[in-house]
């Protein structure tokens, strides 16, 4: 096993690592500064796009050079060529303290993303599904901070966390309709050192990897929710994980340079870096693009 700083941009709130198999490029975002970054598996050829608001997640689109972005001001379509961002729909225009946060695409090209209370206090958030026809569906509600949506390899289970609940949840997922049902506790997160569930991904063996922010930990859970493996990371504020690279065996990990809330202490010189973990002996599953 080897841990490297892939790229040191000191992202204020690095999030949403996303390996695109078609382009063989890693995308990630700075949620706070409203930026999208792209680089190679070696951290080279860095490009970035400025967004007009804080961004929770992005999904690449099947048709053309663009992305769906979950901005604080609603779901937007970003044109990578022009850099222009156009509104698709804003489900929470009546909740100025909310913003849309983490999201991911299911294997039928739907974008599932949830919102959060930016003070991380009130259960004012919801979980949404944006379909390829741009119709929006609310899947769940009463959420403080949405994080870590991802699916089992057979598409039958949807995983999702409300960060400060101290749990990661599982739902039955209907891949034909995109409906969720039967929310239950998948696993309880060890919050004794101040950590909480942030971004997740599911590997090819169906195990879930979760970044436990403020606790410097990546935790791998078995499909039954039991702890399988823990990796301590060079920084406390690790935020999200995604497998990528030519062989889908590099784990990319984002982190934040500056926490959104002042109660969390600093993280030293590696703060806000994107890390790459090699030789874990595990591969990921390619992320689908958004669209029919």
């Amino acid at each position, binding site marked *: *096993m*080897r841990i*490297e700083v892939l790229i040191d941009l000191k992202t204020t709130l690095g999030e949403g690592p996303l390996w695109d198999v078609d382009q063989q490029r890693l995308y990630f975002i700075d949620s706070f500064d409203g930026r999208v970054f792209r680089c190679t598996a070696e951290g080279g050829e860095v490009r970035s796009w400025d967004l007009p608001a804080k961004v929770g997640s992005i999904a690449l689109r099947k048709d053309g050079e663009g992305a769906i972005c979950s901005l604080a001001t609603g779901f937007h379509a970003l044109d990578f060529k022009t850099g222009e961002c156009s509104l698709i729909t804003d489900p929470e225009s009546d909740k100025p303290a909310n913003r849309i946060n983490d999201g991911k695409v299911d294997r039928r090209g739907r974008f599932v993303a949830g919102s959060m209370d930016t003070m991380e206090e009130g259960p004012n958030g919801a979980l949404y599904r944006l379909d390829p026809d741009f119709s929006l569906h609310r899947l769940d509600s009463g959420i403080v901070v949405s994080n870590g949506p991802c699916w089992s390899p057979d598409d039958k289970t949807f995983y999702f966390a409300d960060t400060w609940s101290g749990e990661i949840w599982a739902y039955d997922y209907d891949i034909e309709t995109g409906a969720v049902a039967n929310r239950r506790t998948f696993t309880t997160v060890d919050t004794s050192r101040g950590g909480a569930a942030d971004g997740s991904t599911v590997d090819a063996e169906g195990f879930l990897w979760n970044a436990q922010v403020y606790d*410097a930990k990546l935790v791998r859970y078995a499909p039954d929710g039991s*702890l399988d*493996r*823990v990796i301590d*990371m060079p920084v406390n504020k690790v935020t999200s994980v995604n497998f990528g690279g030519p062989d889908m065996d590099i784990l990319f990990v984002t982190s934040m340079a500056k926490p959104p809330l002042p109660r969390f202490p600093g993280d030293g*010189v590696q703060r806000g*870096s994107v890390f790459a973990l090699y030789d874990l002996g595990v591969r990921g599953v390619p992320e689908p693009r958004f669209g029919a």
Partner: protein
Amino acid sequence: MLRIEVLSERKEKLGEGPLWDPEGERFYWIDSYGPAIHRSDLKGGDAKTWPLPEPVGSFALRRQGGAVVALQSGFYLLDFDSGALTLVAKTQEGERTPRMNDGKTDRQGRFLAGSMDHEESRPVGKLFRLDPDLRVSELDDDIICSNGPCFSPDGKTLYFADSGKARIYAYDYDPATGEIAGRRVFASFETRQGFPDGATVDAEGYLWSVEVYAGRLLRFDPEGALDRVVGLPVFSTTSIAFGGPNLDIAFVTSMARPHGGRYHLEREAGMTFAIHGLGVTGIAEPRFAG
């Protein structure tokens, strides 16, 4: 850029005592409960192991070849060719629970090593100095667990941790005589998650302490203020030494023995790590002059 890689995949029960030998360009470390001394080159080649008959706390290479070793019961000389051990002196014979633990040479080639309560609760430990003429002196006592002795670049300050009391001390050290004086608390770990374990001083005179049971390297400035924190892939990190041809690689040991039931989840617990890209160089450790 920071790069943390596994140098040795051996899962040591209690990896400790990392030491770079600039003459032979080899890296040494121990498994206290192996018990054994291990050696390899920077790519894991030229590997050799010297098994030992009782738990080993520390060792230093000798100028004339072989090593001086602090085993549970005292100081011994090890012949690397034959593997034979020769007793120098038992340190706390007849006392019930101490065992010798961490040690290091001073800048003149004396070997300082301290003992610890095997159960890590009573202050039965002492700090000893082994001079080149193989005489043993007792320097301090009332120690629960001796760890991390190391010296300022000018050799005039000795840093030494009592892990059981969660603090690192500094002493005035007389390079001419090896006497200590003026003990004060250099850094307290009372509000930290972990405890001070092995340590080394870099070329800038900053102290690197391994926070065991927290998986972190802490760098302190010469006044004891925390300067930098580097997290490591495992929780159970134990000791640090700088080495490599440019003395810019930090070698870090860890332990695989269970603590609070969680280490079995860390596949890398007990492995030995090489950390590149810290932007800091170390000071070559002198050999034992005896």
